[in-house]
């Protein structure tokens, strides 16, 4: 009963900010815009290496930017309260901190799951529609591996949103959390070669690396079981969230 109240309150807080809806709108507009753009040169790419042609994966590459936008959403669920000092008021009303953070996590998960799935399905259909106009072989939702890639992609984006909630809680500042998120999803993968060999195993579950194998329908020999990679990333996110709960419970506001 009480958790339902906290959840309801967190939902009111989420829906009563225009920035929440602007961010979601940006996610869809930018996400689909990138899908449309990325399909432009599809015909030429396909001609180059027809055996690697993955019309589904191609239409879902928008995840690269979408994960940043959905991450901002997750970060703001927490840090907007710190930036304004509202967290003190919130905790006065809900002093059981684990309950408060759990409610935030649930709201962020629900929003991100819906937004992530909507974006992935819309990207898939838009991408395939563009391919049809170019008379390039395209995919159907019923083709092998397609539904798995599209729904798995939505889950991937939700997990990134949760990672962002965790980072926002730990950092308490939008800029710091965003910089960390950018580091995780863009910089670390770009600098993979610099890391020692014992750390290379981590890249199998790293965002934009192994975990992103879920977006492909043409199997990548390095990641034959993409759901395992995605599951690994979700475990990593769970660890970050656990750390977030630990510091949130212990520290002064």
């Amino acid at each position, binding site marked *: 009963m009480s958790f339902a*109240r906290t959840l309801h*309150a967190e939902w009111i*807080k989420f829906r009563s900010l225009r920035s929440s809806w602007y961010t979601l709108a940006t996610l869809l507009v930018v996400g689909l815009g990138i899908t449309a753009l990325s399909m432009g040169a599809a015909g030429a790419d396909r001609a180059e290496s027809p055996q690697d042609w993955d019309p589904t994966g191609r239409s879902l590459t928008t995840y690269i930017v979408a994960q940043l936008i959905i991450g901002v959403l997750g970060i703001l669920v927490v840090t907007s309260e710190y930036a304004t000092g509202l967290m003190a008021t919130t*905790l006065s009303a809900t*002093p059981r901190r684990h309950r408060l953070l759990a409610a935030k996590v649930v709201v962020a998960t629900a929003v991100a799951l819906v937004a992530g799935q909507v974006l992935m399905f819309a990207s898939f259909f838009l991408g395939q529609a563009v391919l049809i106009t170019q008379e390039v072989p395209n995919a159907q939702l019923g083709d092998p591996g397609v539904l798995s890639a599209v729904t798995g992609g939505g889950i991937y984006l939700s997990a990134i949103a949760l990672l962002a909630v965790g980072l926002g809680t730990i950092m308490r500042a939008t800029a710091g959390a965003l910089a960390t998120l950018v580091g995780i999803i863009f910089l670390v993968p770009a600098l993979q070669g610099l890391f020692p060999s014992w750390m290379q195993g981590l890249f199998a579950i790293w965002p934009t690396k192994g975990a992103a194998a879920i977006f492909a329908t043409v199997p990548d020999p390095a990641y034959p079981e993409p759901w395992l990679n995605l599951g690994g990333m979700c475990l990593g996110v769970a660890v970050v969230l656990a750390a977030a709960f630990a510091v949130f419970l212990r520290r002064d506001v």
Partner: protein
Amino acid sequence: MTTIEVRGLTKKYGPETVVDDLSFTVEPGQVTGFLGPNGAGKSTTMRMIMGLATPARGSVTIGGRRYADLPAPLTEVGALLDAGAVHGARRAYDHLLALAVSNGLPRRRVGEVLARTGLEGVAGRRAGGFSLGMRQRLGIAAALLGDPRVLIFDEPVNGLDPEGIRWIRDFMRALAREGRAVLVSSHLMSEMAQTADHLVVVGRGRLIADTGMSELMRANGAGTVLVRTSDPGSLARRLTAAGATVRDGLENSLVVSGMTGEEIGKLAAYHGVALSELTPQLASLEDAFMELTKDSVEYQGAA
């Protein structure tokens, strides 16, 4: 009747002890002024009362329970710690609604507290566009949502215009008259003099005084006399020679302690000094406060 009991409260930030073994009780039906210079630990103490900061030692209970154990805290304690603590992009109504819902309070309470704080007209406006006075009212509206028996205000009049100050003052008096326990912090004694029934004075995190306002007035007001004459210098020497303590007051006046008005008048008549004013004073509370905190500083310095 709900009281706030603070017992042996201690808070350290690194090596610095900001609240040091503080104990006091906030009783219902009166305004308790929580007074101290800036940095005395008032806000930290209030945050510990609200469970927002964890004490190193000691305890705080509200009606016998820890804040974190209150099932619906807004129905027991209302607090205004920082008027700026609203999201500027959220409508006043939604801000209050989220708080009300989190404590299972009915939606109509939002309308009621908006009316009581005079904010009905701006309920649909975003809090970012509010003046400080309106934000203050919004914070008080939030504090009143659950009709709590205990209210806590941290420097509520800071930065307000005279009308806003008067409104808050009257409002706190009214809340106390309704039988609620009201704890209000300030670094201005003059402010407290007009609001508080009871005073808890702190300096450098320590309790300096825990006293009724009228006792404090009496204890510190006795024996000071304001004297005005055309030649204050020579009179001051004669008063000092007679055993009084003399210091310069405003506009060439003398503030004399240790002698009554009658004795000063006789002394002046004996020496043929014409007095233009001779007024027994109740020392201002400001002086009393300075006196109190000065002692604490000296004690700290000696320790």
